[in-house]
């Protein structure tokens, strides 16, 4: 249990992941679902970047000269998360576009109403 306390970044991201996961599944409103999806993606990014963080190091940008490897924080997770952000943005954009179309066709964005309306 004490390990959870020490690296609290990871615990925070897992809690966030849980919240995002729950909102994605439980809420019937489409916009809330997309918000949940985003929370989930950001929590995974937080988890990975927290993994890369080394106490007391500096962000990996070469200002004037190269200060040797041990000075910088691990850059790989941050670069991964660049692509992660792009992926999250594109999925959210597609989901929002579809919600607009749904609103046009069904008139509501409450999923349970759409399900009943859809059946008739």
């Amino acid at each position, binding site marked *: 249990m004490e390990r959870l306390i020490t690296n609290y970044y990871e615990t925070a991201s897992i809690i966030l992941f849980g919240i995002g996961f729950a909102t994605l599944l439980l809420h019937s409103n489409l916009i809330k679902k997309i918000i949940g999806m985003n929370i989930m993606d950001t929590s*995974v990014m937080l988890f990975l970047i927290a993994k890369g963080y080394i106490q007391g190091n500096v962000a990996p940008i070469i200002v004037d000269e190269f200060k040797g490897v041990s000075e910088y924080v691990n850059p790989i997770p941050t670069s991964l998360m660049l692509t992660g952000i792009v*992926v999250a943005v594109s999925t959210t954009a*597609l989901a929002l576009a579809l919600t607009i179309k749904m609103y046009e066709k069904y008139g509501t964005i409450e999923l349970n109403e759409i399900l009943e309306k*859809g059946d008739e």
Partner: protein
Amino acid sequence: MTIIKSFPLIGVLILYLIAFIMPLIKKNSLVKFLSVISFSTCLILFITCLRYVIYNGSYFYKIGHFDAPYGIEFKIGIIECVIAVLFAFISLMVSWYSCYSIEHDIDERKIPLYYLLINILVGSLLGIVFSNDMFNVYVFIEIGNLASCGIVVVKGKKENIKAGLKYLIMSCLGSGLVLMGIAFLYSMTGHLNMTYIHESLIKSYMNYPQAIIITLGLFTVGLGVKSALFPLHTWLPDAHSSAPTSSSAILSSLVLKAYVIFLLKILYRVMGKEIIFNTPILNILLILGSLGMIMGSILAMFQKDLKRIIAYSSVAQIGYIYFAIGLGTELGVVMCIYHIIGHAVTKSALFLCSGSIIEKTCQKEITNLIGVGKEMPYTLALFFISSLSLVGIPLLPGFVSKWYLAIDSIGVNKLLLIIIILASSLLNAVYYLPISINGFFDEENSGGKIYKSKEKTIKELMPIAILVIAMFYVGINSEGIINLIKTALA
């Protein structure tokens, strides 16, 4: 000689480049021709690469100038090449079929966009199969995810958008879990390259017992959602039945399989045998697989819509594939890959036949597809033959994989499993045969139908016929394919 080594990458690149050229071209027929050309070149490339790999063994292909732990690399093995040839062949057939039938499904302006999405989707599936780098596979999964949502939604009707959105949310959920799994793996091992992860895991898996179980759980659930494992399959019937014909054929025969291949890689290449044997993961897969087999077929029995029946039957067949993985033996994995090949060919033929039937008779319910045998005898005959393979008539791939699965489950001396396999093949018969029987033999209320009136031209039936012939080929020389996979796994 070494140029052949980079053929897989060239194949994937060609697919992407041609995909992006498509919106520029105004004439639709040129767009279609281009997509068929791109798939056929890929097919040729992969066949040569397969022959090369058979003779000189599998190899690692490093992309760009950075070698393994930092740069991305492709692992080109016999299994990957066989699956790539399968993917290229089926997408060639489906795009050839869609050249004739796509106008009925989507309107003129969207056709270049549609073929762009198809090319990107198949390119990303090949990426998933080849790539040996975890994050690279994740990016390919995301691209595939968006592209497959695109081809479901492209029809733009009410139920399409609902199904597409449902599919998008479920697969985002899945890829979120997969990303979390990759994060866990990265935190444990510090590497992203599968072979390096495996080496460091072997050394250090003692001191992360729970973390490994969590990672396996994340991957199984995430990929289970995306490959429609039984309890997580709710999105599949709506997505596949409302999508246009050729896209539902690609969706159910190719897309589901790529994620299973990735799960196989994680289980056997990243984790390795000793780790997964002391986790309960294989039994869970076994239970979920057999559940999927039975429940998938039962659900299919109650469906009225033709395409939904086939969609539910692919849930059952995915249950077979997970059942094969769950057995845990080496023969189980071989049979899992063989069933992927057999099922992909059969399912795409089934979807194309049902698509052409629905397109011509514009009837979706099987109740009023009664006299269709008189009107479209060849299409329904092809449908009947491919449904025979799923029912399990000897000499067809369905029977071979059922037979070996049963033998394997006896080997693992779990006799109960044979009953499950046989029960599910019986259930398949119960919901597949009435369609063909009512189609051919019901004279009563199909009196008014004139013979061969709505038959599609031979030109349009050619792709389905070739798929059925390929199915026979896979069934007949099943021994060759199985030995090929066995050598690959050794």
